[in-house]
């Protein structure tokens, strides 16, 4: 029960987008195509979880301070490995949809949300199980944030919004208001 409550808090009150802004640009891109929201979120979750798993073992190899300078590079390699495997698996199981899905795989692979998850996990020094739960929460939290933005994305980009605010400024204003509400809940 406690784990469930922690996971719920991690997805909502500690949502990676609303509390750290990490992955906001990708989120706005994702909200533009609500039909792909689920696949996009699933890819982000997959990348966060699998690369956290790989990074956990890779970090064990970096024992000296000088080798830890290359931590970002090691994380990139972990992400790269998951990226290649994901594309290969997609090619074999969903060849017809491969062309349309690969764009989302690319956007999910190298973005701040996933890399930020790896860095946060590394800084926390938490055991593997906690890291994987956190990584899954990052992915689900991202999906929730993308859903919240996609509900109103069309309105935020419509002619009713003043031209200067239309699109991107209105979107981040909207995200800012949600972030403020979450902040108020936490205080």
């Amino acid at each position, binding site marked *: 029960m406690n784990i469930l409550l922690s996971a719920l808090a991690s997805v909502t009150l500690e949502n990676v987008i*609303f*509390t*750290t*802004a*990490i*992955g*906001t*640009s990708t989120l*706005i891109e994702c909200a533009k195509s609500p039909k792909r929201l689920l696949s996009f979120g699933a890819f982000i979750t997959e990348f966060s979880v699998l690369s956290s798993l790989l990074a956990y073992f890779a970090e064990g190899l970096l024992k000296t301070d000088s080798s830890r*300078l*290359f*931590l*970002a*590079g090691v*994380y*990139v*390699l972990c*992400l*790269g490995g998951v*990226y*290649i495997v994901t*594309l290969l698996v997609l090619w074999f199981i969903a060849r017809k949809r491969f062309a349309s899905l690969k764009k989302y795989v*690319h956007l999910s*692979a*190298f*973005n*701040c949300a996933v*890399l*930020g998850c790896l*860095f*946060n996990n590394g*800084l926390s020094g938490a055991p593997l199980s906690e890291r994987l739960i956190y990584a899954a929460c990052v992915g689900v939290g991202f999906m929730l944030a993308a859903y919240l933005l996609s509900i109103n994305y069309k309105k935020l980009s419509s002619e009713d919004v*003043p*031209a*200067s*605010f*239309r699109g*991107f*400024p*209105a*979107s*981040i*204003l909207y*995200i*800012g*208001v949600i*972030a*403020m509400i*979450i*902040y108020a809940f936490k205080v």
Partner: protein
Amino acid sequence: MNEKNFSRDAEREGILTRNPLFASGAILAPAVAACTDFYSSAVIAAVFTVVTYVTVALCSFVPRKIVYTVRIILYTLAASLVYVPVHLFFTKGEVLGEMYAAVGIYAPLLVTNSMITLRTETKFYRLSRPYMLKLAGFYVVGYDIALLMFGGLRGILSSGTVLGIKILPFSIPALSTVYGGFILLAVTSALFRWILGLIFGSPQKAA
């Protein structure tokens, strides 16, 4: 049209009409969460400039024959290697070290910024190398200027002071939070687009 005549266009595009932060909304996280004053903005801008420009320049030599997926991995890997000396430089000095520590993970996260992972393939590497280097330079400078303006303004409004001297009769501490960053960035971005609209026509055309 000859690319040599495009210098002014490159300048206008990178700094104004396609400004990565204010017009395109790219690389938002460091601006919203880490750039709470001028100094933190300067640190992020410096890391961003070196990591992005050197990576874009170096990776322009990566052969196009290599599969797209592998190319992107190579770009980000190169960025993470370029980041190592930058990290060493900032952690050396005491004052710089403190400012650098304050931006936390937002500095290393710049290795996956969209200028490296997306714009290289969709724009930069489709151009001739000399023009590409010029355009990339203007994009980087455009982001830096926007970041410094945004961080400076945020610092002044949130504390009401400049270099410790009180210049405003009020302060809005909430602007140094993440939600404050989102809201202020939305307002400054809209203001930027409105000014562009006055200069170049409608904001939609300008952006």
